[in-house]
């Protein structure tokens, strides 16, 4: 069975933790951003949205963006990191907004 939204969020949080670990040695702003993302994700983790299928596409995007950034970190490819962090911030913000489920109707 494919991963659920919650499983993807758990993986994203874990990836972000690995990403944040020691990132400040390169750029403190990056680490602060990723730590903030982790905090926000932990706040919304377990909520109704992540039990629903509509959580899958947006969570997967954040999960992949986090994985891409971690890959760069592990490869010491710092040139691409600013863009990767920006992309991760954007997809994380989108995910947190979607988790609010404004205007949702379940029938």
């Amino acid at each position, binding site marked *: *069975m*494919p991963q*659920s*939204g919650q499983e993807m969020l758990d993986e994203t949080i874990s990836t972000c933790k690995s990403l944040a670990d020691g990132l400040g040695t390169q750029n403190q702003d990056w680490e602060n951003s990723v730590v903030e993302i982790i905090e926000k994700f932990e706040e919304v983790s377990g*909520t*109704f*949205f992540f*039990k*629903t*299928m*509509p959580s*899958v*596409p947006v969570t*997967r995007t954040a999960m992949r963006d986090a994985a891409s950034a971690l890959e760069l970190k592990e490869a010491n490819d710092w040139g691409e990191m600013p863009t990767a962090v920006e992309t991760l911030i954007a997809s994380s913000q989108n995910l947190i907004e979607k988790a*609010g*489920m*404004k205007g*949702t*109707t*379940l*029938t």
Partner: protein
Amino acid sequence: MSDSTVYYMDAHSESTETALAAKMITVFDAAGLDEIVKPNDIVAIKVHCGEWNNSAYLRPLYARQLADRIKELGGRPFVCDTTTSSYSPWGSRTSEIDILLTAERNGYSSATLGCPFICADGFIGTSDFVVDIPEGYILKEAYVAQAIAAADALIALTHFKGHSMGVIGGALKNLGIGAQSKRGKFNVHMGGHPTYGLGAAGVFHPENFKGKANTPDWEILEDCCPFNLYNINENDELEWDGDKCANCLGCFGVMGPRGLMDIPPVQFDAVDAAIADACLGVEKAVGRDKVGYINMALDVSPRCDCANHADVPIVPHLGVFASKDPVAIDMACVDKAREAEGIKGSAAEMMEAHHAGDKKFEAAAATFHGQSEVTSINTGHEIGLGSRDYELIECEPDSPERFRFPYDTRPSRQRFGERFEKFQPFPYDKYDGKGFNRLDVVDLDKVKHHYEDSPEVTEIGESVHADGDD
């Protein structure tokens, strides 16, 4: 139950006899549904008239075409839908006056249908006929909308699509939910059920209520429930009388996202099984040999027509199906959707379930992870409502003559020759008989060219200009 037969035509159309409305009648006859209708029979055509601002529901044309066919057979058709549960605080079909207004806005009226459009379960949805279903998998009785139960024959004219609770919205759901009265819907939705009802299985989290002062729209927390079961007390605490919950679904979209209610996915699974039971109840109310099914698998949106919007279809039009077996016809549609490539940009692609062979409704339509697109189908098979094993018979188009404009069947000269002479629409008396003031020759290549495609465009433009032709 032995194999059933499903009659089918694909969705391609290039002529009078392959118009989708024509194909619908061709499969209707091929499946023997014409034999269900006897002279003077009152025939209910059950449709989904669409929620306010939904735009994927079936065009009224199909119901009209079917009503006309039933009249040809000597029957007296009416087209109907039923009041909904109050599944959204702002639903548009919860009472008879609301559904009639919505239906009319969506094009369903006696003027368009050539027969009455009625709300089959009365003003508030309590007009029904109770049927025992001892064979039921979970339900043991069904509350069938009175006008449907009273009909001599019933054709379920279904828009086949996805559904957030049913996963698929097909023939089984058109009758298993759509032909139930409002209280019948509470029954199917597990209202008051000791295991699967929201009152029993839902987990209420009043601790997540932040108080009126921190909840600007706090009133909706009370107002989402028509049974008045939510209350913010004098201590600024949210209370819920879950024992009385009817599972109208009105609070789902309000409480769930705010973390105030944990809605159990098993409740949806139970509803999906109950849908087949309730469909059997409808067949028993009308007569098991007096119900026919047409599935129009067009505009296969991920969400049901009960949503107040319609998303990009997840697969291309699949075709037109007819059968006497609601289980087989839904299975055939699910199989066709599975075989199809998903549509680019649709929810199927967003869920990465757009490949041939993917279970697209489970990915793109279901609310919860783990819901199945065949729960209702398998339940229907289990209880003897129908068979998931079927033979699919592809029909040939009927003659074009049958589907031409019926009010005047003469060709053009006979119809318009004298009138055109009297009220000449072409001014033969002007511009040497050419009729209108126009240039004799223009450069059409210039306006056919895709200017954004290539740099050669300028050269063409320049050469035309050099020739002095523009």
